[in-house]
């Protein structure tokens, strides 16, 4: 007598956060329609924030996302400081530099995380392991500065909670220097590999007009030729005073999205180096006591794009309304055009290319259009995608 062991993976996978559900409708190999169902992870944070006082909200919004966990508190404190007259007029100089460093370190670790998973989805498990290996030193830097690998609890209205110690700065600089060869490695691996070109070029294209109509943000928009980046357009922190570039590609395919993210990591390293160089001594907190009535908007360029917070205050110690819009809210919806028309084997990487918080692809089911029968699950799709890469490699004799 045999006992079959079934290991269920998803809909809530312990590795990943933010469940989303994509239902692909296919005819043969071709994706003809897609249903995107979200809300599995809706925790009512906007409503909860109405019951917290202004100083408690950063802890709450920090827990929206574990990957870009500094973008939400940053956008929130910017919104509150908007009521107080603007970040630049409220926050001490040194704190602005520390905020910028945290913001950029987070971008590097988030992009490396994405790169690793993208590699895994197309069958490059070596890329996955290497990208995550080189992400570790970034998390070590976070631990050194903030005490935490994730959820840094650095942001407060009027400043930051922890200073960067002088004796840590050489260690941080060394870690950044060590990162550059790793980035060179990834850049070379992506730019020069014919298989990656075959898999990612002309796949999941979002044209410039579609990017405008779907209001996408961040690397997804910049890979479609939209010239936007909150760090430059409405500078916060010290971005105005630092020398760096906005990375823009025109093609709108997954290759372009990958290139944007890889090149952005170099810019982030440049930004952090300059910040460590120029950071003045001084206070790190303005010690704000009261928030006057009014409304404020805070915008931060999170790794995935513009993160938006709107705060309304009536002069009490709690916000009467907090509206949060994460970048994926706009980007994920655009999969409707990105994935439809492509093949099933490209669907995994297409849906992942906007860098949602990944579980989405784990939860894909494929339905046969004629009889609504389920034919494939998320894991089958990843295997299908990896298989395609293997075939291309064989075809190229590699």
């Amino acid at each position: 007598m045999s006992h079959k062991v079934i290991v269920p993976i998803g809909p809530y996978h312990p590795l990943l956060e933010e469940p989303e559900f994509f239902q692909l409708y296919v005819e043969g190999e071709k994706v003809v329609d897609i249903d995107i169902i979200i809300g599995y992870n809706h925790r009512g944070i906007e409503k909860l924030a109405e019951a917290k006082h202004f100083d408690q909200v950063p802890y709450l919004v920090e827990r929206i996302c574990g990957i870009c966990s500094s973008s939400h508190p940053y956008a929130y404190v910017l919104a509150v400081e908007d009521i107080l007259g603007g970040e630049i007029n409220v926050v001490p100089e040194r704190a602005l530099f520390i905020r910028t460093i945290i913001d950029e370190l987070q971008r590097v670790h988030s992009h490396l995380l994405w790169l690793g998973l993208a590699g895994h989805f197309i069958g490059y498990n070596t890329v996955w392991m290497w990208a995550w290996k080189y992400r570790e030193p970034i998390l070590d830097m976070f631990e050194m500065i903030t005490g935490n690998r994730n959820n840094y609890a650095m942001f407060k209205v009027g400043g930051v909670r922890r200073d960067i110690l002088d004796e840590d700065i050489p260690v941080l600089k060394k870690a950044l220097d060590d990162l550059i060869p790793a980035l060179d490695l990834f850049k070379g691996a992506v730019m020069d590999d014919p298989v990656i070109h075959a898999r990612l070029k002309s796949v999941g294209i979002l044209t410039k007009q579609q990017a405008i109509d779907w209001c996408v943000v961040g690397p997804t928009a910049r890979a479609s030729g939209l010239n936007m980046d909150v760090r430059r357009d409405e500078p916060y922190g010290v971005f105005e005073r630092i020398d760096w570039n906005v990375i823009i590609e025109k093609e709108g395919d997954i290759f372009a999205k990958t290139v944007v993210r890889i090149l952005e990591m170099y810019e982030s390293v440049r930004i952090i180096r300059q910040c460590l160089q120029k950071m003045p001594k001084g206070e790190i907190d303005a010690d704000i006591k009261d928030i006057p009535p009014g409304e404020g908007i805070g915008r931060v360029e999170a790794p995935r794009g513009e993160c938006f917070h709107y705060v309304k205050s009536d002069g009490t110690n709690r916000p009467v309304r907090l509206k949060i819009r994460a970048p994926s809210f706009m980007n994920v919806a655009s999969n409707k055009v990105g994935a439809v028309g492509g093949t099933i084997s490209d669907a995994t990487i297409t849906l992942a290319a906007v860098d949602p918080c990944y579980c989405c692809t784990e939860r894909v089911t494929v339905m046969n259009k004629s009889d609504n029968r389920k034919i494939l699950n998320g894991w089958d799709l990843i295997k299908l995608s990896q298989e395609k890469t293997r075939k291309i490699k064989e075809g190229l004799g590699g």
Partner: protein
Amino acid sequence: MNVKEAIKERLGNKIIDWEEISSRRIYFTVDKKDIVETVLLLFKELGLRFSIASGSDTPEALEILYHFSLDKTGEFFSVRTFINDKKNPQIDSISPIFPGAEWIEREIWEMLGIKFIGHPNLKRLLLAEDWPEGNYPLRQENVT
């Protein structure tokens, strides 16, 4: 002509209130019947990027702010409109103009109960299927 002046000139007396809190924060109010015309002007003609809309429940009325970003200059325009009828709140949908507004209108509908007339697919986005009909979490009667 810059975008601020273009909006003022084109909408004229349809702008009920105009407030510049700072050089980058512009709030203006229009009547809800003019919302489609306003959004057409901002999004299609002037090329502003739709950032998001936010709804809130105030003691007098339900309020929606449509946030538009002018990325070239960093100016941020928030169009305010009020819906006074809290029993049966309705406003024209802007989703037929561009699909990027579909999700947020669905969210405002389920959270505040505002019906968007002309929305192509007005169904729940975030709330669970068994959430009671007619209970809108972000209304003030739902006290936290």
